[in-house]
């Protein structure tokens, strides 16, 4: 092993110009079942240590695993959502390695017989570009317990005096999803990596198979990266980066590894195949433990479990219950609503899809819904520093408000005042209109009176307009609007003014 010389980092833009990055991403998702993968211990977040453990999940002598049927169903749902083939028959396998958080000193997983394989998903980047990621496999396995390192200067593994182990998490069902090498992302590799994991997260939530919160560890990502001189070159040596705990970290980790590996290669040195640890504080990665013999997991079929052979009928039953996937839903809605790509992207980025969909369901046009949510409401949310969905107005209310505008009872300015009232908790738009008396005056009488007053106050305007200059009409309209506190339909006022002057 070479000495740990720190070669320089190459600026990212420079690195991606001269090297082609290839990604591989492994995602583990914790399934939201009530019980563990192989025993009936309850799964609940944040329990007291070692209170959610049975002889099976503690790995006591004599204990035996029994497969959680719900977890199998969830795994199949995930596989189908990822466009995978579902195995006709698959087995669990033992992955043998010694580690205190692995109670049996082997993990029951799947090796050469995953439950789902050969899939793909389309990942949408922020600017709308679509990238297809191929999925090699998705398989079932169990989680390990949790070590807390005690003593030592940093509290991390090296240098700790001892560790405390809690097995509550041991045995929780996981599905591991492995991509094929992701090629062709070029300088967008960091974004692709991030968007891929986000897309998966959205899928898990839509499928309702997991809470899917990265910050809670429900979704974990390990990022593999290698560089090669050109896309035609053979694959380079890859590193695996762990401890990537947020979407942003994924992006940063990829950028850093590209820069670092470019520096190593530029110096004429080989990239060492190893596991690296991502550092949240500064966005760097460092060498983790170098695995020597630990790679020999001595996989063999799990003799305590029998094969899982999902019937094709069962698989189709599950497929029929799958909800629409997020990407497909977005495309369908965009078409239905007639939004341009950029418009739809803004809606997605603002998190406004559900709100607009609900508003449209309540009877508004898609254009009208977007006008409010992406216009005035977005501005207010920004101003108050809250999410759109946290504003105190419902899609039904917006639909009602837009309806009032379209029927001519409110103009835009009045509508904004009504909105103020709704946001202040004064009730539905109708109620606010009545309570505040904000309706557009529909009776010509008061308008004519106001017009006459305005004309009387500015007699020279009549001459000018009769002379062919329509410009000053605006001043009359303005005066009328002021007199009516804005509760006049400007168009109608103009008609009446011209009519009056014409006389």
């Amino acid at each position, binding site marked *: 092993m070479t000495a740990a010389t720190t070669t320089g980092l190459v600026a990212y833009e420079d690195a991606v110009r001269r090297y082609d990055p290839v990604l591989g991403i492994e995602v583990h998702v914790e399934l939201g079942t009530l019980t563990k993968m192989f025993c*009936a211990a309850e799964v609940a977040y944040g329990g007291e240590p*070692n209170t959610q453990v049975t002889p099976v999940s503690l790995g006591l002598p004599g204990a035996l695993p029994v497969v959680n*049927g719900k977890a199998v169903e969830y795994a199949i749902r995930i596989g189908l959502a990822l466009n995978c083939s579902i195995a006709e028959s698959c087995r669990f396998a033992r992955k043998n390695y010694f580690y205190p958080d692995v109670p049996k000193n082997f993990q029951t997983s799947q090796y050469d017989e995953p439950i789902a394989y050969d899939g793909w998903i389309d990942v949408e980047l922020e600017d709308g570009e679509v990238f297809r990621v191929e999925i090699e496999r998705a398989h079932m396995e169990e989680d390990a317990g949790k070590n807390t*390192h005690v003593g030592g200067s940093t509290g991390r593994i090296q240098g700790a005096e001892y560790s*405390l182990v809690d097995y509550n998490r041991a045995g929780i069902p996981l599905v591991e999803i492995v991509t094929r090498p992701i090629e062709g992302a070029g300088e967008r590799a960091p974004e692709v990596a991030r968007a891929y994991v986000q897309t998966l997260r959205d899928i898990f939530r839509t499928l309702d198979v997991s809470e899917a919160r990265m910050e809670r560890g429900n979704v974990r990502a390990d990022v593999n990266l290698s560089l090669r001189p050109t896309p035609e070159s053979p694959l380079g040596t890859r590193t695996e980066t762990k401890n990537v705990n947020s979407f942003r970290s994924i992006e940063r980790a990829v950028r850093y590894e590209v820069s670092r590996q470019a520096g190593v290669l530029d110096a004429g040195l080989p990239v060492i195949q190893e596991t690296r640890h991502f550092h949240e504080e500064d966005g760097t990665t460092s060498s983790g433990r170098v695995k020597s013999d630990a790679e*020999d997991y001595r996989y063999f079929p799990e003799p305590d479990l029998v094969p899982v052979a999902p019937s094709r009928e069962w698989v189709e039953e599950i497929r029929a219950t799958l909800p629409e996937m997020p990407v497909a839903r977005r495309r369908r809605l965009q078409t239905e609503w007639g939004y341009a790509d950029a418009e739809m992207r803004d809606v997605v980025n603002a998190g406004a899809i559900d709100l607009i969909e609900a508003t449209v369901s309540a009877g508004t046009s898609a254009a009208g819904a977007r006008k409010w949510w992406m216009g005035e409401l977005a501005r207010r949310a920004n101003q108050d520093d809250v999410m759109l969905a946290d504003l105190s107005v419902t899609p039904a209310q917006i639909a009602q408000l837009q309806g009032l505008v379209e029927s001519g009872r409110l103009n835009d300015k009045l509508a904004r005042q009504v909105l103020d009232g709704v946001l202040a908790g004064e009730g539905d738009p109708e109620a606010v209109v009545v309570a505040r008396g904000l309706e557009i005056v529909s009776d010509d009488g008061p308008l004519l009176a106001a017009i006459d007053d305005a004309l009387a106050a500015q007699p020279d305007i009549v001459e000018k307009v009769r002379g062919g200059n329509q410009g000053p009409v605006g001043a009359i309209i303005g005066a009328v609007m002021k007199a009516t506190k804005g509760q006049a339909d400007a168009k109608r006022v103009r008609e009446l003014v011209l009519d009056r002057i014409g006389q």
Partner: protein
Amino acid sequence: MSTISRDEVARVAALARIDLRPDEVTRLAGELDVIVESVARVSEVATADVPATSHPLPLTNVFRDDVPEPALPVQEILAGAPQQENGRFAVPQILGEE
């Protein structure tokens, strides 16, 4: 024919996390060598057309419902622990100097 050398025994013992004295390594190497030579005969009949059997009985799809059962009481779990602290198993430092 394959032989199991002392080095091989030492390597496998490390993989299996079993400390062996040097005399044990030597003895085991001799014993295992004899055994392995004998059992290696299995490859004679284990031709490609014969499928492997990992289970004596052809069961499939044995599942349980996703219904919780009571957990083991914490005190009972920790009762047999060589060392424990605050409801957790205390284990020596993991991965010392490398």
